[in-house]
């Protein structure tokens, strides 16, 4: 371990970025899903900076009970304040809190990294919103019932009235609009939904751009699945398509590699080869603006099935690519990314597949 980290320092040499820390995370028994997500979030610089800022501003209160937010902020601060440049940290407090908070993650079973990411971001939002509410209306009873603890699908929470956007919103939130055109009266109904990530259906030997096109392609609602048109006051055939109304600063793309196969009665992993670019153009926006994103982290699922396996992450930091595998951190090369595209044929053995992709907006930078 020690040898590995000094090797990393040696490999980077003078190019070691000022003030940056590269720390592996200890695995507490199948917590790689958690470690890989944490690394990707840590190297999501705007998120990290805002979280550390939050931590600095709220440290003084001290006596607040631990929650996912404080635990995460504490972990990030711990990493960034290490004296050494490389090493290993045990995210003990964070994992303990996570297990306490949510029974799904309590077991030693293999967990889904996407579910965890989703849970974590929503949990952070809940805490932050509650806090801002407490600040705004200090008299109000703060014993509001919590939302369900399960992995909630944010995409459905769109209609909720929004308070001040939290740091999670600022980084990850985008708005999708669901355009439905009634084929009888031609009325177009727009419905907005917010999202923290886009979950894409995948096809064998395709590209992310192609999957995004499919995501936004026009779907006809007919037969059993008609649309209730408010104007016609009846069920009508309609055309529906999803477009991105407000693109997020950090675009998280989740590839639906775990698919429920009805005949088998269980989930199956799709190792399809889906190529993803280092620079992505987001095409399916409402105003047809050409938005450019740059890849900065890839979460890789290793293994042939959904219920076992391993997670690792590839992260770009200061123009170097790094490979995080629990305790291990290694330098790698940009071309490493393409080894995680997937396999072109079902049984050809490559099971290390890109699962969650993190892109940052290039517009934000300039």
């Amino acid at each position, binding site marked *: 371990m020690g040898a590995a980290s000094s090797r990393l320092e040696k490999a980077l040499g003078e190019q070691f970025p000022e003030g940056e820390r590269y720390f592996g995370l200890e695995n507490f028994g199948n917590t790689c899903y958690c470690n890989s997500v944490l690394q990707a979030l840590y190297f999501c610089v705007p998120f990290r900076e805002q979280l550390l800022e939050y931590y600095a501003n709220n440290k003084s209160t001290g006596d607040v009970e631990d929650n996912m937010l404080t635990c995460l902020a504490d972990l990030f601060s711990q990493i960034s304040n290490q004296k050494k440049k490389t090493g290993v940290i045990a995210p003990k407090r964070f994992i303990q809190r996570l297990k306490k908070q949510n029974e799904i993650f309590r077991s030693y079973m293999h967990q889904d990294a996407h579910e965890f990411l989703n849970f974590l971001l929503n949990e952070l939002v809940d805490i932050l919103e509650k806090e801002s509410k407490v600040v705004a209306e200090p008299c109000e009873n703060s014993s509001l019932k919590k939302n369900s603890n399960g992995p909630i699908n944010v995409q459905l929470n769109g209609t909720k009235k929004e308070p001040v956007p939290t740091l999670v919103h600022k980084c990850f939130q985008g708005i999708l609009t669901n355009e439905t055109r009634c084929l009888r009266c031609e009325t177009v109904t727009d419905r907005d939904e917010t999202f923290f990530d886009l979950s894409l259906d995948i096809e064998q030997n395709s590209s992310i751009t192609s999957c995004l096109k499919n995501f936004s*392609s026009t779907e006809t609602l007919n037969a059993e699945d008609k649309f209730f048109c408010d104007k016609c006051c009846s069920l009508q055939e309609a055309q529906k398509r999803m477009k991105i109304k407000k693109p997020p600063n950090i675009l998280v793309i989740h590839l639906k590699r775990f698919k429920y196969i009805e005949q088998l009665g269980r989930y199956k992993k799709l190792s399809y080869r889906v190529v993803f*670019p280092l620079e992505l153009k987001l095409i399916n926006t409402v105003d047809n603006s050409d938005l450019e994103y740059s890849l900065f982290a890839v979460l890789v699922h290793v293994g042939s099935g959904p219920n076992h396996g391993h997670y690792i992450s590839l992260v770009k930091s200061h123009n170097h690519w790094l490979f995080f595998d629990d305790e291990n951190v290694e330098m790698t090369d940009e071309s490493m990314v393409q080894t995680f595209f997937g396999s072109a044929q079902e049984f050809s053995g490559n099971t290390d597949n890109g699962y969650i992709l993190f892109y940052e907006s290039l517009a934000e930078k300039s």
Partner: protein
Amino acid sequence: MAAAANSSASAAGAGGGSAAAAGLKTYFKTPEGRYKLQYEKTHSAAVLHYNHGGKTVSQLTVAYLKEKPAGQGSTPSTPSSSSGMRSAAARLLGSGNGNRTLSFVGGNGVSRAVSGSSRIGGGLGTSGGIGSSQAVANYDGKGTYIIFNTADTLFISDLNSQDKDPIKSIHFSNSNPLCHAFDPEAKEGHDLIIGMGLFNVTEATIARFWKEACCGPTLQQGRCTSVAWVPEREGIFVVSHSDGNLYVYDKCKDGNTECTFPAIKDPAQLMISHAKSSKSNPIARWHVCQGSINAISFSPDGAYLATVGRDGYLRVFDFSKEQLIFGGKSYYGALLCCTWSSDGKYLLTGGEDDLVWSMDDRKIVAWGEGHNSWVSGVSFDSYWSPPNSDGTGENTVYRFGSVGQDTQLLLWDLALDEIAVPLRHPSSGSPTFSSGSPSAHWDNACLPTGVLQPSPRMRDVPKLSPLVAHRVHVDPLSGLVFTNESILTICREGLIKIWVRPDQNENNHQSNSSELVLGNPVSKDRVITTSNKATGSSFKQSSAVVFT
């Protein structure tokens, strides 16, 4: 995918068996008729025993060998074979039928071994020990051969034989051949250059490899990405690398002299430097861009060099003046391939999604939309001629093909005078194609020389839909070649399929393909086949390209 998933394969083509098993059709329809799978070429599966992690690069070229006059080859020890191919093979392979066996030094790939006949090999290719050279006696020089490299081996196959296996193979034990180029015009036999790379090694090892196998210690790290002979310039060739450098070599010079090039100050800037010593080889280094140069292509007359790379830019240089003429950025990410039309007027580029069709007025002409994944190979079909063309007049329809990582082959027609101009577009500065004479506008171009253009906006570029989209292999494709009789496709794993062109009398396609009257499609059979893919909405159902 609907177009592809059909297991009822017809019995067309000798190699139909395995294709049918994989659910691939053995033919596809075009307006001029059916292209049929004639046969397949492959290599022993043993080559692919290792997991290459998607890194395998397979490249295919077709070599037309003419009978060479006697006395070819300057080296007296070259076997006095009348066959150019044998000679080339002998030079390359050190096959046992001659007295010249290439002497290889094992270990680190030091290949100062071959003087004389294989100077180039000494410089670039023939490092590493020859592991297997499956000598097959039965081949003669004249004819058409396929040269392809895949994994760690370079193969030579006879195009016109139905034999599936290659007639020759060179195995490289230290490094993998990544690309190659064949020079049919070389006066001394047939020269082949092979670009090498190393897999899964540290950068230091690559550097050492280059130091020893190539020339001075100054060569930067970075694997070789593309090699090309300069047309009309005997013995000059160009090698591009993944570090953004391009080296110009002279095969007549020794490849082992010390040469130094100045350090690159700004990796994003073009910098061309010449070797100080007249003896040194490479003779020049062009630092073209940051990141990899993914492909290079010379215009047929050798005047212009096009490069595409990781940074998404197409660059066109005046090769002899060493001057950037123009360039432009792709819409999506990196560009992976490029090629010229045979008249040198147009350029095709392909990359990380879709296909951009550019050139002539130093701007993009059209945008081919139809692949579901990245485009890995593009080529013009210079043997095709539009229906009803009488051979006179200007050829205003270009046929080209593209292959992609979506395992599909797409064919396109570009009718220059009918190209769809997007509506709702302000007339100023629109990249509409100036119809009429598509003559080159190099000199009165609308843009000053040497300017790189930013990415186009999607709505500004006329769209093109493919004539045909056909899933030809089970693996992602890496290249295609048009010949007089057929279209050749090669996949990443090195399997080659030969699609014979439509025959006017349908039943004669296998027996005597050389007698076919080609490029003369049946004009009644004008099915514009648009593929019904899942990309529905963005895919134009009605083809924009119609024959006149």
